[in-house]
């Protein structure tokens, strides 16, 4: 349901793009008006429901148990990560991801322990949006998705239309069990972000533009696996007139 709504919203956002001109704002964010409203909505939901639940979860669950939960979901994600690495022409990285899954599912007891990391197979971060980026598809406008948060037209479509199919949780036959798993994963990942979100709150003058900038930089870096080429234009102007 949420997914369908999000896809519709994205389509709407795309349609709106045709008609709206940027008014001196950030060229990556022509939908700033809508985005800020959605950001505020998400923030409200987070404050009212998700963050309190995540804080409670963190307070109640001992750390080793939370790590186990994080590892369990992380392990399930490694197959899709591996497939994306292969799609991006990085078979070696993909093989490492499949190896991680094999080791952690067996030796790591259904993924509860991340023994593969200790064995030198590092966790990767890939998704279909990055694969499209690698293939040369531009990110399109910045879009804040309901509940899911910062995204772009490219990444949002990838997440809602493609990545979904690579997510094992959605193949769980029993619907209540599936929903419980998806909910637990959401709470677990929010709990892992409690420190980071507090930091962002402290650091930002305007949280919306701070997080937008961070998201866009982060995605760009991920697409190039941490080595993005220097920004081509003058908007990232160098240190002109610097006092040393």
């Amino acid at each position, binding site marked *: 349901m949420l997914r369908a709504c999000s896809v519709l919203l994205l389509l709407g956002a795309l349609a709106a793009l045709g008609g709206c001109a940027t008014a*001196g*704002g*950030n060229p990556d964010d022509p939908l700033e008006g809508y985005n800020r409203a959605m950001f505020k909505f998400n923030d409200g939901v987070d404050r009212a429901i998700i963050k309190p639940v995540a804080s409670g979860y963190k307070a109640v669950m001992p750390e080793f148990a939370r*790590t186990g939960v*994080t*590892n369990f979901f*992380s392990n399930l994600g490694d197959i899709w990560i591996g497939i994306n690495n292969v799609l991006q022409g990085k078979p070696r990285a993909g093989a490492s991801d499949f190896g991680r899954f094999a080791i952690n599912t067996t030796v790591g007891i259904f993924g509860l322990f*991340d023994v593969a*990391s*200790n064995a030198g197979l*590092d*966790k*990767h*971060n890939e998704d279909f949006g990055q694969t499209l980026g690698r293939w040369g598809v531009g990110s399109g406008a910045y879009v804040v998705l309901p509940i899911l948060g910062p995204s772009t037209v490219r990444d949002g479509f990838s997440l809602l239309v493609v990545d979904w199919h690579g997510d094992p949780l959605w193949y769980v036959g029993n619907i209540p069990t599936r929903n419980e798993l998806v909910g637990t994963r959401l709470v677990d990942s929010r709990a892992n972000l409690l*420190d980071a979100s*507090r*930091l962002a709150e*402290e*650091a*930002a*003058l*305007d949280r919306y*533009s*701070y997080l*937008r*900038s*961070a998201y866009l*930089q*982060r995605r*760009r*870096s*991920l697409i190039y696996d*941490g080595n*993005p080429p220097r920004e081509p234009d*003058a908007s*990232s*102007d160098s*240190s*002109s*007139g*610097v*006092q*040393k």
Partner: protein
Amino acid sequence: MIRLLGVICFSLLAHAVGAQDVAPDALIKRISDEVIGIIKSDKDIKAGNRAKINDLVEAKVLPHFNFARMTALAVGRNWPKANPAQQKTLVDEFRTLLVFTYSGALSTYKNEVIEFKPLHAAPGDTDVTVRTQVKRPGAEPVSIDYSMEKTAGGWKVYDVVVGGVSLVTNYRDTFNAEIRDSGVDGLIKSLANKNRSLENQGGTKSK
């Protein structure tokens, strides 16, 4: 007496040369080791005493940062629009904000391991990037890269990039918007307000 003076001069000189000669990656490693060592052993810091972490950052980390350059980078194309007095105020306020943020990040430290990647630099380079990776069990490693420049006073950090996100240029959008809407003084005011509210929070929070 003259000999004593000579010895003092020599040791001062040796000290200055020493600071300049330290390779950029060795410098970052030394600071990280030192700071993490203190964080691990200090009970107050472990308990989340922000004031004490601030002091630590002030004493050990800040001398190796070039805040003038950081501020200029964050402000970007509007930097020349600020007069020298405004530039100085901006640097001071931005410095306070970054220290607070940096201290906050340090206070969440939990036994992560920092790995240094080989430094790609020619002997004559004056601008290098020191690449590190922070490894946490069960999660993808996070990269922390330090952009550094060679100055008369040794190598100085002018940007810190965490997981591809520059702590400095991440402010540029906000700063541009502030200056566009309310000028350089408007930005100074926003920064000052932010810092004041952070200070008040730090004072009331027992944590």
